[in-house]
Each structure stands twice: as structure tokens, then as C-alpha cells.
């Protein structure tokens, strides 16, 4: 991230909202844009740091985590009770989620 050159001027809020699947009311867009820009400006100096000597960035977050458990054993276990699985369904029809209709097109 170059110091300030890394920041789009101004931040294209509409494009970001489309990517993030958010819809910001017109009356709130200026304030959100101001906040987003203030945050990004305060972070801009990060771009000036020389990271050429940085170790690989994809190492585990822990300094010394010797190993993780990896994949869990491949064994059959009792399924989640139907009642629990359906607890968050918008509506239930027999043993199925009933979701509201969405019109595509």
C-alpha cells in the first residue's frame, strides 16, 4: 500500500457496497464515506513500511503452534436432531425449510 497513493480518491462507495452486498441509504452515504476515508487515511503509513525482510506471511498465526489436529476422523455420527436443524428455518413444512419465494429476472 503506497502512502496515500494507495487510496482511491474518493472511495467509490457504490462499488464497494455492490461487492459487499450492502445498500446504504442516500442520506447516510456521505457520513459513511467520510468515516471510511478517515480510517483508510489513518492506515496509509502502512504502505511505507519496508517488508522485504518479512518472513512468509502465510505461516500459522501462532509463533510455536507445534501442530493442529488436522482433519477430524472420518466416522459416522448421529445426525443433528431434526427439531434443532429446523429451529432457524423461516417456516417449516414437514421436515423441510420453507423459504420465501425470490423472484429472479
Amino acid at each position: 500500500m503506497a502512502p496515500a497513493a494507495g487510496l482511491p480518491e474518493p472511495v467509490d462507495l457504490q462499488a464497494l457496497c455492490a461487492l459487499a452486498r450492502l445498500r446504504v441509504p442516500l442520506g447516510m452515504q456521505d457520513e459513511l464515506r467520510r468515516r471510511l476515508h478517515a480510517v483508510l487515511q489513518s492506515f496509509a503509513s502502512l504502505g511505507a513500511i519496508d517488508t522485504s525482510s518479512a518472513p512468509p506471511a502465510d505461516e500459522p498465526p501462532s509463533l510455536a503452534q507445534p501442530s493442529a489436529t488436522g482433519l477430524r476422523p472420518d466416522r459416522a455420527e448421529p445426525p443433528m436432531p431434526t427439531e434443532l436443524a429446523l429451529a432457524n428455518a423461516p417456516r417449516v413444512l414437514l421436515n423441510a425449510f420453507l423459504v420465501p419465494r425470490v423472484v429472479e429476472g
Partner: protein
Amino acid sequence: MTALHVLGARALAAGIRNGELRAADVITHHLRRIAERDPPQHAFLEVFADQALAAAAVVDRDRAAGRALGPLAGVPVAIKDNLLREHCIAACGSRMLEHFVAPYSATAVARLERLGAIVVGRTNMDEFGMGSSTERSAFGPTPNPWAPDRVPGGSSGGSAAAVASDLCPLALGSDTGGSVRQPAALCGVSGLKPTYGRISRLGLVAYASSLDCVGLLARSTSDLALGLQIAGADDGDPTSAAVPVPDYAALPARADLRGLRIGVAREFAAAVVDAEVDDAVRAATTLLRERGAELVDCSLPAAEHAVATYYLVAAAEASSNLARYDGVRYGHRAGGDQRLDDVYAASRSSGFGAEVQLRILLGTFALQKGYQDQVYGQASRVRALLRRDFARAFAQCDLIASATSPIAAFPLGSRLQDPVAMYRCDALTVPASLAGLPALSVPCGTTRGGLPVGLQLTAPAFAEPLLLQVGDVYQRATDWHRRRPAP
């Protein structure tokens, strides 16, 4: 007779085990205290009174029948609202999950209950863990028990306030960038963020997966050690560490700190804004030296950039993790018969609060085409530099001491409009998070206005036993952790 709510987890468990106390009395007492004090305190979002009383009856029956009791049998605990408990709501402080019923229990919660602890309720938090003040809860703020016009810190502010108000002796929180340690410091209690992977994250609602940790809050490090027995590998969480779990509750007490080198990082000292916080932390490190520790200077150059690094990495991960909340698969849904994209946008925009939306946008920015390496990639590389800084520092010292928070509890509403000012509150806690290291906050003083100050001790990975032992030495020499807000 000492009131039950001031005994602490260890004494309550011992009393129940040896028959001096009944679990039912302990739980009833705490439930009554919650009913009396929590309406203004607003530490809890929901109290599980009937379930807790039923669990207490089981503990008492088991004891009467001569059955072995777990080490936490009958101890009332609270859990943060982002930890799943089967059949219970886990709302994450958000309208998005206001009615979400957990289909299973988080491993941390299940293990706590298996040890005999009794969950009395779920506690308030900043929405999805995104905040340092608990003002970002969709269900209203939690005031600081020491000063109701001030914040308790966040995002585990409800858990910290519950312990500080003696509504429960032990609580679970989560710590992504300081969300256990900072509220612990601001509320005058002890808080532990373990090493990344030490406690399973299965059933902890994801915010930033390379940073999220389940943590503990209690009045004393001795009680934290009791709670840390929930640590250990878990088949359900591939990031949980397959590292042997010591018996934290039975660690030998150190007589003093001789032979221990405690680092004082100049970048941490420079980040403290409040002179009274600085004074309290200096007094605490002086005491550590008087107890035999050698204080050594050390440096963490990349820590100066930790806030920017953390917020870019965490926001990037959050934008991905929170993509699942689309009004179809989970939680809140807005709109009727619409196009699918409209359902997504309407649900997310009305279900998420302002700060969550800001961070999703920040993360989307960090990951968007053309900026990914420049922004997220650069933050990841600085993170790697910070990890290396810690590794070099720990070649010179065993622990690093600092303030937990650059400032004491700030007035409610004072930083809500200024995200940069709010993010700077995390300057001293995010470095350990980025490096995946364990860190402990213990109360170490108060400001002249009576606001608590926290001392943070950071250790190498999996050195929780050392942290707990040093914290215990400090707490046997001081009484800050025993001080309580005015009733």
C-alpha cells in the same frame, strides 16, 4: 459469613464439593443478585434461571449420592452472546441473529458445563465483536460498573461488567484484538486471552478466523486457571492446537519472581496516552522487580503499526466470514418477493449495525481486485514482521509487561463518531493477537477518579502457566483485584 458473591469460583467450588455450600443456594443467590442489579447494569441479554436451578439441583443430588463432582461443580458462569449453547439464542449482539437458536454447544461451553459449571446467562457485546466499548450492541450499551457514565470496554463488556458487579465469578468472552483484556482492564477484573488454538473455537461465531480466541474473565488469576481447564485439542476445530494441556488449576504457586526477565517494550510505553495509566503500570512493574524479576528493555518496532495491520486483516476476514448472513441461510431477512440481490442487500443493510457495515466495507476494500496485495498483502507482511519482533524480544525476556489499554474507561458516546479514535484504544492489545500469543490483564491501580487500570503481561505461545503464576504472585502482593465498585 462471607457473602456468596464475593467468594470467587475456586472457593465456591470447594465449598460445594465439601458440603459446606449447596449449589442451589449459590445459584439462587446469584440469580437474585442479577435480578436486583442487572436491569441498570445490562450485563446480561438473557438469564437462564430455570435451567441454572435445574442444573444446581443435579449437582446437589450428585453430591448427596456420593458421585464425583467436576472441578467447577455448581459455579455460576456467564457466556458471551457469540458462543453457542444448544437450544439457546446466540445473537452476537446483532439484530441479524436476534432469533438464531444454536443447534449445538460451543466446545468451550460444553467443556465448561462438563466440568460442572452452571451457565446463568448470556452477556452483552459489541455486534459480532466489532467494538471496544459494548456501545455497538444492537441491544443497548452496558455501563461501566465503576462509573455508569463510562464504557466497560469491549467487545466482551457484558462479561467483564458481570464479573466486576459480582453477578458471577467467572465468564467466557472472546478476544480477537483485545476483547477480553481491554474490558477486563476497564472494569477492574482479570482477563486471559490464551494462545491462538489453545481453546477450541468450534461454536464461537466467526469474526476474524486467524485471530479469534475464546478467553476467560474472573476476579483473580487463580479463578482464570480453574476456567482454563476447558483448553485442549478438538476434532471439531482444525485450528485447535494438539499441545498437551497442563493442569492449570494445580500449578505450583511461585514464592517470588526471581530468575524471571520481564521486558518493557518502548513502543508499548510510548502508546500510553493517559499519564495516570502510565503511573499505575510503572508502579506495577516496580512491584514485579521488587518481587525478584529483572526488568529489561526490549523493542517491537512493528507494534507501532499494529492497529492499522490488525484492522485491515480483521476487516478482510470479517467481510468474508459475514458474507454468509444474506437473509437466506441465517438470521434476519428483509424484503418480500424481490430479486435475490435485493434480498441480500436489504437483509444485510437492515440486519447489521453501522460499525459492522463499516468494517465489511473496509475489508471489501482491502480484498478488492487491484488493491489486494497493496492493502491486505502489505498488512499480512507487517504482521509477519511483528511476529518476528516478538520472537526476538522473547530471546531477551520471559514476559513483556505493558498497560492493557492506553486510557481508562472513557465516557459513553465520546468515541462513537470517530472510528479512528475508537480503534486506537486497541493499540496495546492487538499486537499479541496478531502474533497469536497469550496475554493476561490484571487490575493494577486506579486513576484519581477511581477508574480501574490494567497491567498486561504477554508471553510466548503456550506459556499460559507462566502468565498465571506471575499474575498470582502479583495478586498475592496487591489487592487491586479484590476492590469492588460502590454498590
